[in-house]
């Protein structure tokens, strides 16, 4: 039995790694995607383009504008000359926020009177606008604080595990999971469809291979390649992006293996349904996109409607993201890992069992 499984694994690996092109296809995209996601998918709002319509020519407004100029968040400041220009600025999406300073701004402050400032934001980009207006308000309110007021600190916020709130701390460990999942579904999904396309599937089915042997023989090669890619990505995260790896590496690999097994089961299941590789790729797409959306990578699971929260419990990525972030950033404890690993084990049994049942249905 082991001999047959070994033969099958060697064959799968040979086919996957047969030439330089395929080898590059397996190695380069995950790393490329890792860079792409990390740099392109920033969740922070930085480099905001701000429009200022200033009716006031006094000292106070110049001083306020200088505060904006020195802020790290606002990069490009455009001075607007009329209401019309302000309208254009937002309409043509040159920026998402404008600041209007009234003509009596300096005078009111000088007199110690109340004054008003208007912030206009682009609601089409609701979350960025909100963040930008938050930054702007905090600059304005600090400026308006009386100079002689006692600097008190009623509250000090400290961010655990990610003291500088670097968004990469959040995205990179998640990406390791997401990219592993995509590969872990894609490789096995294509493998059986490819055998069907090239008529080799029948040849395998008439051989004495049993369902279990076939299942193992198809799972292990994807697992090996998945682990290799995961290693590449972990190295990139730690050595290139300098994400701290605080947890236990052995436990992390154990979790990856179990997680990969569960998604390979999904891939094999897709594969057993498809006749061609094209169909299989479509199948992968149909599964992967919702799996990422439900995982809590982009939006917290807690914010989803109740029914989607239930649905997300069959998404292995949801649990793995918790483990991945936990091990990377906060040295997650064994019991905490197990809490999230057990659902994945359950899912793995289910998906592999289902794929096996489908193979068997065809075999016997």
């Amino acid at each position, binding site marked *: 039995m082991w001999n047959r499984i070994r*033969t*099958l694994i060697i064959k799968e690996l040979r086919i996957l790694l047969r030439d330089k092109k395929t080898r590059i296809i397996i190695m380069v995209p995950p790393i490329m995607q890792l860079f792409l996601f990390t740099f392109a998918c920033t969740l922070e709002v930085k480099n905001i383009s701000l429009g200022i319509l200033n009716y006031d020519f006094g000292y106070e407004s110049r001083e306020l504008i200088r505060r904006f100029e020195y802020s790290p968040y606002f990069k490009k400041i455009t001075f607007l000359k009329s209401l019309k220009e302000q309208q254009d600025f937002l309409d043509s999406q040159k920026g998402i926020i404008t600041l209007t300073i009234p003509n009596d701004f300096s005078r009111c402050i000088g007199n110690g009177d109340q004054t008003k400032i208007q912030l206009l934001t682009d609601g089409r980009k609701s979350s960025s606008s909100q963040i930008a207006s938050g930054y702007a308000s905090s600059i304005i309110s600090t400026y308006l604080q009386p100079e002689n007021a006692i600097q008190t600190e009623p509250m000090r916020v400290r961010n655990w595990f990610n003291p500088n709130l670097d968004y990469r701390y959040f995205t990179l460990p998640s990406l390791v999971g997401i990219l592993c999942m995509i590969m872990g579904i894609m490789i096995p999904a294509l493998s059986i469809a490819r055998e069907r396309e090239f008529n080799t599937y029948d*040849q395998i089915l008439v051989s004495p291979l049993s369902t279990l042997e076939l299942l193992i023989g198809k799972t292990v090669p994807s697992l090996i390649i998945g682990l290799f890619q995961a290693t590449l990505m972990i190295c990139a995260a730690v050595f290139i992006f300098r994400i701290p790896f605080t947890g236990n590496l052995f436990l992390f690999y154990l979790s990856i293996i179990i997680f990969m097994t569960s998604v390979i089961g999904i891939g094999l299941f897709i594969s057993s349904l498809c006749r061609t590789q094209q169909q299989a790729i479509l199948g992968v797409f149909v599964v992967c996109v919702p799996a990422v959306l439900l995982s809590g990578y982009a939006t917290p699971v807690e914010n989803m409607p109740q029914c989607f929260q239930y649905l997300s419990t069959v998404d292995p990525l949801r649990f793995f993201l918790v483990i991945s972030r936990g091990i990377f950033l906060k040295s997650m404890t064994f019991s905490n890992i197990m809490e999230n690993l057990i659902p994945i084990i359950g899912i793995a049994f289910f998906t592999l069992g289902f794929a096996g049942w489908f193979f068997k249905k065809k*075999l*016997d």
Partner: protein
Amino acid sequence: MSAFVEIRHLHKEFQGHTAINDLSVSLEGGQIVGLVGPDGAGKTTLIRLINGLLKPTSGSISIDGADISAERKKLKDIIGYMPQKFGLYEDLTVIENLRLHAKLHNVSESEQKIQFKKMLEFTDLTRFTERLAGALSGGMKQKLGLACSLLGHPRLLLLDEPGVGVDPISRQELWRMVNELLRDDVLVLWSTSYLDEAELCKNVLLLNESKLLFSGDPKELTQKLDGRVYFLKGVSDRRQMLSRLLDHPNVIDGVIQGSLLRLVFKEGEMPSLKMLGDLGNDDLELVSATPRFEDAFMEILGSKISGHSVLANRLSELPKSETITVRAQGLVKRYGNFTAADHIDFEIKQGEIFGLLGPNGAGKSTTFKMLCGLLKPTEGNAFIKGIDLKKNGPKARQHLGYMAQKFSQYDGLSLLQNLQFFAGIYGLKGKELKTEIETIVSIFHFEPYLNMETEKLPLGIKQCLALSCAVMHKPPVLFLDEPTSGVAPVMRREFWNHINGMVSKGTTVLVTTHFMDEAEYCDRMAMIYRGKTIAMGTPDELKRKMQDEEHPNPSMSDVFIRLVEESDMEVST
């Protein structure tokens, strides 16, 4: 005045590989010209060159006085072309396909109606006008393809292997259709790898390895063999006898035909039993036979094959016994209301070649698949060496060697890696695996190809590889699915030599085929039609049943056609 089609010094190369080598021929209208040759001989290339779909490397082709590469647009309307594959849109209905092709050939609306009616009646497809082309049977698809290529009254009709993968009945109908359509000026170029089909043409072009070996009346070639073709009667062990005789210096070709051996002798001496030496049997008799085109073809190729199968030599002889090795017991397969196989029963003894014959879609593939475990029967059981496939599939399959119809080794692996893989999944390991692979490599002379990727291998080597992968674990039972369809006669003989050798050693063989020559090699066969066994017996028994005044000497093809017709009559009454 030049001929209708004039080909001069035609030469075509693909990336350094010569596909057509210095071919010159002129063809007049009003005839069917057979374009014959094994796979890869250059038939399709020639047809595509004539059609202007490929540009010649050098040389010229002119049709009706106009050069094809210069004036293709003008000539387009007088050429009808039926490609080997993809000629039809499977997602369109029969009538939509016709309309599309009519538009492509600029047939006017009013003319369309007349032509469609004629074509539909002619092809007997009127009932299926609204059916999707993809849902038609193989034979009907070819007929529709032919009808499409006939629209607009072409004067040159190029048919690229219309008979491939089509059962004898449909082939006969296609042939009849083309003949009836033949008007005075139409030239039909009919490409085929079936030599019996070529024999019907008055004029053939024989291509082999990119060269034109012969052009003219096939009778010219067959006449040369008059008095050199004989049947050997009264043979007790025909396989052993054939293998002995093929090694005789005076015998240039031999095949099994039912209980007889068909032998072609060398030119010169008058063949006699004495000449063959001591054959250890006194009841032998030589009876003169009519030469066939295939005999001539084999002679012109001049390659004689040895009667010994080195592949069989590595097998140890199984003790002769009457045990049943393969058994189909009331096999039924239903898809919804449709019964693809209806209570199929048969038994195959050890060391027997059993054939499953039938037209496309008759249920022979379904039966075959149920016997090797690729399909689960709705009812009934299949046994290999007494093991029920349903109960212990993997164990039963260990005894099986399987060769699929289409090439099904891994394209991405090298030849050696394929051998290693198939040896491995059949449980060979370590030293045993190494020696078995070494033996196979030396038997088939695979050495130069070991590290070549399988997709780049020559066709013949591919076929040998497929056979090697099936027999490497020395299976006592061998399943062959249309093993030699589209394979050249020489290779077919070599292939059957190996099979015969292995059968002599006690291997049991189940083969599906619609190649009637192949059926002659079987010890017994079952004719499957509409999911039912309509006849079973030895080839001679079946032939004897069909003997009548009209057919004193029925061929396997005649038997097949008669049996199917009779069965159709029963159904309709």
